[in-house]
């Protein structure tokens, strides 16, 4: 096949496009940090997950150790069932505790995992028992107002 000058230029255009895509995939997106490595699934029931979303990080001591894989509603006990995909390289004791936390005052919500003391580690399909729900701002405010109204008001001045 005959090679012409146009071939070179079009080849450069295609290469440039491929380089741009590679740049987008590696530099701006998370292709490298997408986990090709194995994960194990762990489930937990929460009374209230607040604004937790799929793909939210699971952090231990601030390090991402897994992600939220699935959020379902369990209509047997009316709780939210959250399935976490934990990185295979991080092992946690069976009695670890989960908490739904918020990064910053208005930031996104994530799950914090605190290691327990059990000698047996979590494995695929396990269910974590100890969970703490998301803090719902409305409940907090109403409890605050309720406490305020119930408490006897301190008389200023005194005798």
């Amino acid at each position, binding site marked *: 096949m005959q090679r012409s000058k146009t071939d070179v*230029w*079009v080849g450069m255009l295609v290469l440039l*496009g491929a380089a741009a895509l590679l740049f*987008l995939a590696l530099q*701006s*997106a998370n292709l490298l940090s997408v986990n090709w490595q194995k994960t194990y699934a762990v489930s937990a029931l929460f009374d209230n997950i607040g604004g937790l979303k799929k793909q939210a990080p699971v952090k231990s001591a601030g390090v991402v150790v897994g992600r939220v894989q699935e959020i379902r509603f369990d209509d047997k006990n009316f709780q939210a069932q959250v399935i976490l995909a934990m990185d295979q390289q991080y092992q946690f004791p069976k009695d670890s505790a989960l908490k739904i936390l918020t990064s910053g005052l208005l930031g996104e919500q994530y799950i914090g995992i605190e290691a327990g003391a059990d000698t047996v580690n979590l494995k695929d399909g396990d269910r974590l028992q100890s969970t703490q729900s998301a803090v719902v701002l409305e409940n907090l405010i109403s409890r605050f107002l309720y406490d305020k109204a119930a408490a006897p008001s301190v008389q200023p001045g005194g005798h």
Partner: protein
Amino acid sequence: MNVVAHIGAATRAWLADVGHATALFVRLVLLAPACLRRFGLVRDHMHFLGNYSLAIISVSGLFVGFVLALQGYNTLQRFGSASALGMLVALSLVRELGPVISALLFTGRAGTSLTAEIGLMKAGEQLSAMEMMAIDPVQRILAPRFWAGVLVVPILGAIFSAVGIIGGWLVGVVMIGVDAGSFWGQMRDGVDVWADVGNGVIKTLVFGFTVSFIALRQGYEAQPTPDGVARATTRTVVMASLTVLALDFVLTALMFKL
């Protein structure tokens, strides 16, 4: 009674138009193997449509990135989250601005020249002459240009987004002084390869089909007069731009669930 007849005739003509356009589109798509067999033709048009659009695409991308970073910083720093600037710039570019603006620029830069070229070929009776020689103008003239356009628009869209992100980095990090680590880090956290970059590429592909087809059809159906070619070129820009924007809305609604 006359009005009813008029409306009926207009509707019928419009329907016939849609049917005719669909037939042409299907023919062009089915001609893909024929184009692959003579890829030299497609390559020549990729050179014309792609390489010559490169300058306008990358310069526009750079400036769009500049402006996004300036405006984004202005808004984000009010909420004390200037560190999310990288994510803002990358998401806006990869999801929306990259595909849409590069499709609009491609319409103006290359779509118009396609329409004018084919319209003039028709006005000069070159297309009829080819038919006389038993050469199918749709296969020989339209299909290579169509497939060249379809292949080139995704390339241009990716280059636009990449250059735009570099532009955002230049203004955000180099000029304003947002922390480089959080600029790239937040970007990587917020942008997903398949959901954002992948869907952006699908969008540009759809826009490539749309713009190339509209430009070619307007040229092919143009009145074979100077006035007719002028009108066809105008219609290409108007129709392609509107279709791209409307399709973008539909695609966004389909791809990015709330």
